[in-house]
């Protein structure tokens, strides 16, 4: 039995004050094992992105804690958090946020630079099918291609956790499936723990672990016994 890698305990977070105060996370508990493909599922306002931001160390909870491999984020100062993100996390956002005046290869190098043991950039380019586009600039690429670059930038660090915030939110069906396949492939090939936030119910089927959120609490926390591949997904 693998040990829990990521542990979330009694996580609470609210925004605003007084009457405008809104509790986004209301005591959240769950844990994820190393190498797991975990999907955080829930409708808008369920607290998915806030949770992801707290796990990523770019937002702080009001109470409770997040621990990764036994280290609690709340005990870390800003510098340690930066090192934590640098060493352990890879981020993929709905918007690709690529650097416009760097080409594809260079954008991936931006991720590689941060890591002590980065993957081979060329290999990542090949894995992501970007070899023929590696000297193109982001504005010469389609949305799907840009998202591949964004995945490449995150994966090349060889992070412990790959955080994906609605990575297919801005993509069409076909491209979305391609991107999901790539994330799946990276998960298998490099053994990263994947935490993917989505509101697309269908995606849960390709995960190992499904956590359903609603109104700031975990409604369902289950392991997926009938895991299928991304290629088999349909919605």
């Amino acid at each position: 039995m693998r040990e829990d890698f990521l542990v979330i305990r009694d996580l609470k977070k609210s925004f605003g004050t007084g009457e405008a105060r809104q509790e986004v996370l209301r005591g959240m508990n769950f844990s994820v094992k190393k190498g797991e493909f975990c999907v955080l599922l829930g409708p808008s306002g369920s607290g998915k992105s806030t949770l992801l931001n707290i796990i990523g160390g770019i937002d702080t909870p009001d109470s409770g804690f997040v621990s990764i491999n036994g280290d609690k984020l709340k005990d870390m100062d800003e510098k340690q958090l930066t090192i934590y993100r640098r060493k352990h996390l890879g981020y993929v956002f709905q918007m690709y946020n690529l650097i416009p005046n760097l080409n594809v290869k260079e954008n991936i190098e931006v991720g590689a630079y941060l890591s002590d043991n980065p993957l081979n950039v060329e290999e990542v380019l090949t894995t992501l099918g970007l070899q023929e586009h590696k000297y193109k600039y982001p504005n010469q690429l389609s949305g799907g291609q840009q998202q591949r670059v964004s995945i490449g930038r995150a994966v090349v660090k060889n992070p412990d956790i790959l955080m994906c915030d609605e990575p297919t939110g801005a993509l069409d069906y076909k491209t979305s499936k391609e991107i999901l396949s790539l994330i799946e492939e990276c998960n298998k090939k490099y053994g990263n723990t994947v935490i993917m936030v989505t509101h697309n119910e269908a995606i849960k089927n390709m995960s190992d672990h499904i956590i359903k959120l609603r109104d700031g609490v975990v409604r369902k926390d289950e392991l997926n016994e009938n895991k299928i591949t991304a290629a088999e997904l349909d919605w």
Partner: protein
Amino acid sequence: MRNPLIKRIPKELKSDWHKYIVIIIFMVMMIGVISGMYVGHDSMLDSIYKGRDELNLEDGSFEVKNKATDAFITDMSTGKMADVREYYIQKGINEAKEQGIDLPYDVVAEQVDKEWNKVVERYDLDNKDFAPAEIKIYENFYHDESEDFDKDGIEDATVRVFSSDSKIDMASFNEGRAPEKEDEIAIDRMHADNVGVKVGDTIKVGGEEFKVVGLLSYVNYLTLHKSNTDLMFDAFGFDVAMVTPEAFEGLKTRVHYSYAYKYVDTPADKAEKKTYAENLLKALITQTLVYDNEIDDYTPEYLRQGSNFAPSDIEKDSAGSAILCYILIAVIAFIFAITISNTIDKEASVIGTLRASGYSKKELVVHYMTMPVIVTIIGAIIGNALGYTVFKDIAVGLYYNSYSMPNCRVVFSEDAVVKTTVIPLILMFVINLIVIVKKLQLSPLKFLRHDLAKKKHSKARRLPNWSFIRRFRLRILFQNMPNYVVLAFGVIFIELMLCFAFGLPDSLYHYEKKAPDMMFSDYQYVLMNTKDDEGKLIKTAEKTAEKFSSKELLYPKEKTELFAGMGSGGDEGVTVYGIIPDSRYISFDKKLNEGEVYVSVSFKAKFGLKEGEKITLHEEYENKSYEFTIAGTIDYEGGIAVFMKNEDFNKIFDKKEDEFSGYFSDNEITDIEEKYIAAIITSEEVTKVTNQLEHSMGGAMNVFKYALIVMTAALIYLLAKIIIERNEQAISMAKILGFRNGEIGGLYILPTAIVVVICSLIGFGVGYYIMVWIFKLFMLSMDGYFAFYMSVPSMGLSILYLLIGYAFVSVIDFIRIKHIPMDVALKNVD
């Protein structure tokens, strides 16, 4: 692995090359000019000071009527006083002997002593502190010949001709060579330049034709002062030249037996130089007497205008332009900071992602700091390179325009490096660092959410019920407020420089025009002594002549840090006048008590003095100071002066009742022998200084004005570019919505135009007053005073020039708006 973000830098330089070119050109020009100025300044001074050794500059010189005998030279070299009393006794005995009378020594001695005591007193011959100053004497004879450079038979100038074999006060050659044949001559470069004589030309000197084979600069004639008492040099009417010894022998006018000397023991400082010179004068007076000769001139080198005027003037050179440079660099730094701040806004998501991925704040600060630092370094390198070459030559050219300088050898100027490279780099670094660090202070999440405003407007600003377009325009104005603030600073800066460019010539012209009114008498005759050779008071029959007493004292100056290192750093020279009762030239409107004085308006304005205030003036070399109370002001702008009753003057300065310094007069005085006159001051003398300044700087000012139009355009271009770039998406969206280019131009260009017009008016006011202040500070570091002045047309033009610059930018802006594609609005929308 190197940070891959570095790869963005060359790409950014390439993609936004026009912006960076403008900034770099800007910096290169400013840094280049300032560096050139300092390098030129330091090199010129270095050449002058090195020349003093290499060309064996004298420690002083004296001229006697008859050629000095060897014995005279030998005795004079000892620096000892001759025994004049004994000389007179022997002379008396001998004269009596010639008449067949044999007078006993004691009788003659008694007779001599009667007169002798007067002489002792007059020349202070029994001063116990007298110490002989041993000297080495060199012959440095000359002829003052007529010069006819256009060979029309009319004398054009006086030329002082020296022989080429002189071993002291030698010349360096700017062009050509020393004369080798009897019909060859080398003349002063500055004079040749002024009158249009070139190497190879033939000129007439003393009626004989000479071929000009060289243009030179004598180490003791860096400025062409014919007489040491001339207030201003005259490079048109006076010349110095060198001929071969043979040609020198052939010159017909009388030989001036001038002897230059060097002290055997070099005096340590100016005070010691003065003591040496005073002691040597006593030796000269007595030795000349016992050798039956006469002194025609005696000038210690430290008082020689010809060798000291130019270097002290160069030392006073302005640091004002360095301050302007720093202001400009600060403005550029702000432009950079705003540009980067906008880039950070634009790249918020990327920054958020990078920070979320583990990039540290420091890495991003370094990244965004790289560009301004690189651009400053490029600017500083090219600027300095140009400074040491092209601009140095311009600066040196300005000095060559005024003085007879030796050839300039470039020296490394630490000042230039600090002021043109270190300070701009620090300025650029600090300003950008503050802005960028502040900007990147936000959390990664805020960047990801584009939540970059520190303060959120709780309410949208409500606008009056104007037309939609007007309200839209106003919104744009509000939105770009920070940019407009920088624009306002830029405009104030440019107006400041325009005030300088227009105001300086205006001030000079104004001073010159007012000069005749500034003189309280049309002529001021300063006499060498109160009494003539026979011991009688020097008088004149001129009816308007009025005696005055005067004395030079010093007023302590506060050392201002702003202009540190400039000027002599010494105290202000003040002329103290003693005025006779019921003077027709100076009237005191109240009764003055002892110790009460009037001050000139310039004195009052320069040091912000008030009536009733006490001032302390002190002697330059003696440890004496005098305290006065200001009782009133005399409307005299010609100099820093203090006026008091003659009676008080004599009392305070321990003068005899009949002692005086000279005459004020409304008409020329013709009945005083020239040899008794030390200087004649007329309005022409006062304006010679401004004329010279105008001659040296007039052309440069015009170039400066046009350069300012370009700078205005460049500065506004950079700022307007930021405004348009910031609104690219909105402009693109407006196009999609169907707004025409003209309408969009009206929306985005008009607010800038309004801001520019308002700023130029305010900027002019602010710039004008800053200039008045800077000018006053600047004047504090100089001797003398004249106020900053700007004529009304100049004021108008200084605003118009700025608007002309802006008009060019508007056209570019409109073209820029026209070229914004519609798909900008459709891309990158989160």
